[in-house]
């Protein structure tokens, strides 16, 4: 019985028929998706923190409204994704509890600090750029609610990247100090952005199953290569240098070759030892705890109003 169900399930996947919440699915498919989507949602939410740091210090009103809108979008992305994850049978509070206890992960990029205004440029350009590379194929993921959430997310991302690139462009056309600031931001954000695609393919044990289930459409290394190939000419337009001595065009491959990623650093950050892990998690836990009275008050208010409504109805009936 179980075998037949699984075969039928795989057949649907192979035929590109989407899986919907109440359809039968293998437990491992459900768990894999739940982990991936909730982790993705957490990343959007935690991802607001590094940029939130600069909203009050944006250099002018135009930059400020743009950054504010971008950060608000990221909150929206988190909410679309939590809502998709909930269809797999885990409550929002359970997901948040896993984030707050440290059991659930989020993208390690957000554990780096935002030291200057140029970081807003570099994040929009590179971090959102890498996110777009990852996310566009997810619009075709086999699980309906996830794919639909990703379509919404992707529609909004291109503004994020363009506003970031515009910040970089303005800095690069400014004073030598401003250009140096842009270069410094590129230096600090380049490698963490490269790590956003995850471990090398030969080190990514779950990829094969995710590919078979059509959750994943391209391998980590394929996406990373794409990212390098589009980023190099973008850096050239800015007139700043990607911090990789091994970066060079490979005529035979038709791609840029690039240097080795420091996976020790990646593993350290994932393990909780990045520069801002503690600060980020604390900000989330504080927000949750300090907001408790608001959540409770809203429930109490809703209950009171409901009761009053019922009383009036009873009186009217009598």
């Amino acid at each position, binding site marked *: 019985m179980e075998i037949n169900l699984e075969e039928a399930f795989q057949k649907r996947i192979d035929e590109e028929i989407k899986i919907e919440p109440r359809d039968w699915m293998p437990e491992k498919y459900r768990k894999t998706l739940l982990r991936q989507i909730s982790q993705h949602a957490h990343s959007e939410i935690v991802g607001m923190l590094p940029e939130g740091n600069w909203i009050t210090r944006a250099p002018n009103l135009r930059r400020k409204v743009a950054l504010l809108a971008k950060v608000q979008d990221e909150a929206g992305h988190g909410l679309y994704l939590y809502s998709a994850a909930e269809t797999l049978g885990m409550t929002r509070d359970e997901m948040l509890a896993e984030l707050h206890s440290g059991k659930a992960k989020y993208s390690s990029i957000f554990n780096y600090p935002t030291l200057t205004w140029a970081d807003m440029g570099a994040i929009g350009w590179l971090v959102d750029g890498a996110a777009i590379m990852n996310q566009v194929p997810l619009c075709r993921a086999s699980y309906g609610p996830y794919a639909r*959430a990703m379509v919404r997310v992707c529609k909004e991302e291109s503004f994020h990247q363009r506003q970031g690139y515009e910040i970089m462009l303005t800095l690069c056309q400014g004073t030598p100090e401003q250009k140096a600031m842009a270069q410094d931001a590129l230096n600090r954000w380049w490698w963490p952005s490269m790590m956003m695609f995850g471990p090398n393919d030969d080190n990514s044990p779950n990829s094969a199953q995710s590919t078979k289930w059509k959750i994943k459409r391209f391998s980590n290394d394929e996406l990373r290569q794409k990212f390098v190939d589009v980023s190099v000419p973008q850096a050239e337009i800015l007139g700043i240098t990607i911090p990789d001595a091994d970066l060079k065009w490979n005529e035979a491959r038709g791609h840029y070759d690039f240097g080795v990623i420091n996976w020790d650093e990646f593993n350290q950050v994932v393990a909780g030892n990045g520069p801002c892990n503690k600060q980020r998690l604390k900000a989330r836990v504080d927000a949750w705890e300090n907001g408790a009275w608001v959540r409770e008050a809203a429930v109490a208010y*809703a209950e009171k109003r409901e009761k009053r409504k019922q009383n009036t109805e009873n009186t009217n009936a009598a």
Partner: protein
Amino acid sequence: MSNKEWPLWEVFIRAKQGLNHKHVGSLHAADVKMAIENARDVYTRRMEGVSIWVVESKNLHASEPSEQEEFFDPANDKIYRHPTFYILPEELNHM
């Protein structure tokens, strides 16, 4: 401290006058008013809608996916419900 999670609401949006409301996702809110306001902020930041419906998820009832085949079976063999079932002369053009 109460651990009560805010109820879940399904959100439907009419993109513009003349179109149906379409399901876009869900959200949590303490009451109807908050659900509609949150739906506006979460799902219509770029003028994606002119009207919002919210329905508490527990009030939504659906057909059974596992019975999909039997359930929709009555329509399967009734090809005479489609215009192409009827064979008419070509001169007739567009009917």
